[in-house]
């Protein structure tokens, strides 16, 4: 199987003055088209750095990222990011926030009317069309994150990068949004890479879970396949043996073998 997204021997060393910290070491990962992969690890293990490297917002010290066999090292709409804190521009309406990306990406390929329709199509996908003229400060946290997802989807990315997308939400909203993302993945078949620190979320959503060891010099400790059929139903899985086994594996990795050591 050919790799769609390939992380090739990525090392990342931060240098501050004379001090150097190796954050990531020898990260190798291949992701297939349409796959949903989660990266899980304790905070500070460099998973957000890894996402930033893939997004092109930071450069790897050595190694690189290949998307469809071409190296990518600067940010671009082909790797759209859904940020943890939604990062909607507060002076633009919901519609304008999505339109900003659409206008850039489809400047030449879509007419004005087509771009407008495309924005509304994506807002409809996340059920936010009703709030098109609202500003981010007027909608709830979950709604903001939906708009963030719509903005990313509207750029038609080859890979959708989710940076702890549900981290800032309350449990009920989070579950609701997870279901939405699952449905979107089912419907659109995107390739998705998600950073998370929530074990249930990782098992529920992913095809594969990449578990990272603790930093500094974090590596990929283990990759777990989640052989659960889609569409998955949250309630059915609660008692599903495979689900529980996967969950157990991740928990063991995080809390037994690579317990989080508080840097004192």
């Amino acid at each position, binding site marked *: 199987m050919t790799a769609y997204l390939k992380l090739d021997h990525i090392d990342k060393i931060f240098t501050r003055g004379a001090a150097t910290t190796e954050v990531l070491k020898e990260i190798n990962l291949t992701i297939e088209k349409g796959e949903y992969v989660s990266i899980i690890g304790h905070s500070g293990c460099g998973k957000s750095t890894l996402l930033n490297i893939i*997004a*092109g*917002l930071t450069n790897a010290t050595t190694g690189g990222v290949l998307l469809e066999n071409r190296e990518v090292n600067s*940010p*671009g*709409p082909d*790797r*759209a*990011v859904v*940020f943890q*804190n939604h*990062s909607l*521009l*507060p*002076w*633009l309406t919901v519609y304008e926030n999505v339109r*900003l*990306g659409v206008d*850039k*990406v489809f400047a030449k390929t879509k007419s004005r009317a087509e771009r407008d329709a495309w924005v509304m199509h994506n807002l409809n996908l996340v059920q936010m069309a009703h709030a098109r003229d609202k*500003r*981010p*400060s007027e909608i709830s946290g979950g709604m*903001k994150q939906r708009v963030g997802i719509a903005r990313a989807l509207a*750029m038609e990315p080859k890979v959708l990068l989710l940076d702890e997308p549900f981290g800032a939400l309350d449990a009920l909203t989070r579950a609701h949004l997870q279901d939405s993302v699952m449905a979107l993945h089912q419907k659109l078949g995107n390739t998705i890479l998600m950073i998370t620190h929530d074990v249930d979320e990782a098992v529920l959503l992913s095809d594969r879970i990449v578990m990272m060891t603790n930093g500094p010099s974090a590596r990929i400790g283990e990759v777990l396949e989640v052989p659960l059929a889609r569409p998955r139903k949250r309630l059915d899985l609660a008692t599903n043996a495979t689900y529980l086994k996967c969950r157990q594996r991740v928990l063991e990795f995080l809390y037994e073998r690579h317990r989080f050591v508080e840097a004192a």
Partner: protein
Amino acid sequence: MNMSAAKIETVTPAATIAPVVAMTPKRPPRTDAYARMARETAVRVIPPLVVIALLTLVWELICRRAGSALPPPSKVFRDTKELILDPFFDHGGIDKGLFWHLSASLQRVAFGYSLSAIAGIALGVLVGQSVWAMRGLDPLFQVLRTIPPLAWLPLSLAAFRDGQPSAIFVIFITSIWPIIINTAVGIRNIPQDYRNVAAVVQLNPLEFFAKIMIPAAAPYIFTGLRIGIGLSWLAIIAAEMLIGGVGIGFFIWDAWNSSHISEIILALFYVGIVGFVLDRLIAGLGKFVTRGTAQN
């Protein structure tokens, strides 16, 4: 309504003990709103009016004695009645109504302040965006901004050899520093998230400037603009005293030279009011422009 109806049905015996309270009929909302508005206005307007009346009374009592150096308010009003009632007369030269003096000063401010707003925002963006520009320029700004407005006047007179451009230059150089510094702080404080969004969307530098930088830094920019307009109004009065010609600053100086103390007091009153209005104008503009940029 539905709730109370359901309640009556289900709790029949208790209903007699605790009857459903009938809703008080709604008062006509319009007069209600007017009354509330009137009350709110009164709360804001009456205290300052009372204070002003008291201060005027004290002033009158202190200055009405014979041989007092300053005129009491009653005399100020008597002396300046013509100036107050007819601000539009024009007898040629500098013998004009207060309207013309104020408008001449305001024109200078408008010109000098517009230049400083444009240059100040541009320089502020440069200093905020580029670390090297900041390292190079910031020490210079920090020293230059402490120079008092009038200290620039002789130099600008020497350079321009004319009063009008010199006055405008003094306004420019006085009001530009807070605009530069606040704009730079605003640009430096643009959240990394917005920069990341711009990078992912691949905005070019010009689009980044117009769509991210200016809106994100607008609250800071307007703080600078507001301080700037206050400083320009301070500077113009002082500068006009020295350069002469038509303008409220020279009007004050001229009144002092002819011992018309009442006219000075009237002019100060106008200067204060105009300064206040200018400040509110920029604040209002800022509020209008930045209405959507509140952090959420």
